């Protein structure tokens, strides 16, 4: 029985060893200078400096002069186009921009890859500099790419501290280790605070009564965070104020187990605990609060 599939064959067109071409004196000079990490242009009879050099003035058709001049290495981007998905043929394996770059001292623009990091960096008039390949052969790709000039720095501030937890915090975290949230009831106003604390901020009096609160509560407000945080499992993540049942003030915690955009005020949630053997004296014993599926609560 004949096959339903069409007959298909792979076919490759290639020139074994590559296709060789002579450069001529003008392009050859430019590529030779590139190998030495220098950028050169050639002057036309009208006085324009062509970079990259051509043998003839594209405006007049006249042969260019023998007047060579060093240009760059910095230049100004005149147009750029972001490449979100580089191909194997492209100079960079990460997103980059194609750019027309007018090197300082040149009257024409060079086309090359610009390692700009983000399309937001492609501002008109962006100043750029070349990055040279370590192994150069006299090829336009001896220029690995261009990068923006330095206009910003990032300062690291490595100040280290050693913090001892207060007795009240330690007491609270012991509760979190053992699977409950410890609150404090004010003897004066009867408000229940969580995490556990030793004074009432409203009355200004010491509080002594410990209250064990359940691990269920209601979201009063929340934020969707798009910047990574070492304490969050992924981006975006949701941090929320959760009013534990029986508490008078909300406690901040992560919310998970549902897409960020589905989190809402009034949503009922329950803590998701790590298994007891993995717990430490830390809030990370609670992976996050996840929806209970109960009906929302009016706030």
């Amino acid at each position, binding site marked *: 029985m004949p096959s339903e599939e069409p007959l298909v064959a792979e076919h490759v067109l290639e020139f074994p060893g590559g296709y060789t071409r002579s450069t001529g004196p003008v392009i050859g000079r430019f590529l030779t200078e590139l190998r030495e990490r220098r950028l050169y242009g050639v002057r036309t009879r009208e006085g324009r400096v062509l970079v*990259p050099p*051509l043998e003839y003035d*594209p405006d007049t058709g006249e042969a260019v002069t023998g007047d060579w001049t060093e240009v760059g290495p910095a230049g100004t981007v005149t147009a750029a186009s972001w490449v979100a998905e580089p191909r194997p043929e492209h100079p960079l394996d990460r997103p980059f921009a194609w750019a027309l770059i007018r090197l300082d001292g040149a009257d024409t623009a060079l*086309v090359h890859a610009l390692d700009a990091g983000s399309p937001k960096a492609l501002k008109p008039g962006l100043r750029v500099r070349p990055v040279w390949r370590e192994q150069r052969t006299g090829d336009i790709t001896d220029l690995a790419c261009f990068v923006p000039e330095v206009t910003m720095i990032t300062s690291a501030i490595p100040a280290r501290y050693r913090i001892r937890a207060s007795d009240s915090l330690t007491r609270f975290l012991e509760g979190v280790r053992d699977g409950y949230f410890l609150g404090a009831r004010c003897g004066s106003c009867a408000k229940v605070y969580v995490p556990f604390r030793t004074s009432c901020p409203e009355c200004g009096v010491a509080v002594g009564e410990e209250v064990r609160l359940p691990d269920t509560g209601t979201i009063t407000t929340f934020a969707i965070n798009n910047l990574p945080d070492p304490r969050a499992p992924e981006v975006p993540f949701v941090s929320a104020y959760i009013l534990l049942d029986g508490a008078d003030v909300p406690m901040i915690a992560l919310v998970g187990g549902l897409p960020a955009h589905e989190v809402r005020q009034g949503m009922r949630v329950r803590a998701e605990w790590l298994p007891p053997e993995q717990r430490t004296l830390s809030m990370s014993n609670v992976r996050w609060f996840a929806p209970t599926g109960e009906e929302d609560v009016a706030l």
Partner: protein
Amino acid sequence: MREVAIVAFAQTRHTLTDTGLSEPELLLPVLDEVRERTGLRRFGFTCSGSCDYLAGAPFSFVSALDALGAWPPISESHVEMDAAWALYEAWVRLQHGDVDTALVYGFGKSTLGDLRSIATLQLDPYYLAPLGLDQLSLAGLQAAALGAPQAELDEIVRRSRTDGLANPHAPDLPLEGDAPPVTDGAAAVVLAAGEAARELCARPAYLTGLAHRIEPHYLGMRDLARSASAADAARAAGVGKGHVDVAELHACFAHEELILRRALDLPPETVVNPSGGPLAANPVMATGLIRLGEAARRIHDGDATRVVGHAAGGPCLQHNLVAVMEAGHG
């Protein structure tokens, strides 16, 4: 100048996939169509446009002659360019005065290889090809140089794709997008001079102006926001000497249409690319010839009296051909 007219035009139903037709098999129906329409089996001159890199085989255009019946030997030529330039060569040949008819055809199976890699091979091998720039890279740079509002560009794509849905030769495509489809297809045109034009066609589309101009290949040597060569070709062809009912422009990207409208100085009432243009079907190497054929068809059908066909080649509209065609010139 001898009066020369497009007297017949035919094109394939362009496809987004390889249907398995060989190049002669792709061509034969369109050649049959123009031969039937004109009643001609032999032509004073034959010229084609195609690119061997599309099939990845040297001299692949020679096999296309099998669709012609080139025996006894015919007078034939080929350009490794869009077939609009084959039409230009045939027009020049007809000016010699010793032959009266010419067959022009173009074809391309863009789906066989990776069209982006193949497009890189058209570029200067010293400064551009080693970087791997392709047609999308080039279009991105030219669009950035022009800086047109995105809404205006989107509207051109939407209009072109909507018109394409009404064009039986164009594949059905979504109304959004920013690049032309990768398409297989072919087209053929018959040119006739003097008395032969009137004998072969009720309403010949007389080529009253035909010119092509080129500018530097290297992108950084020109102002990409304008097309000086298209403007020069339009002036030489006399686009501005009369009204223009329809202009079929070889604009593969929306920003190219904006650049070309300005270069050709088209009045706002001119209908641009009623066929859907290259954004609706882009059988590379025939796309430009189809623009001239689609424009001529409006005169053949009696829908227009003066039209413009445009073809482009090279990176960022480097090379432009402009044809002005008129009805009832003879």
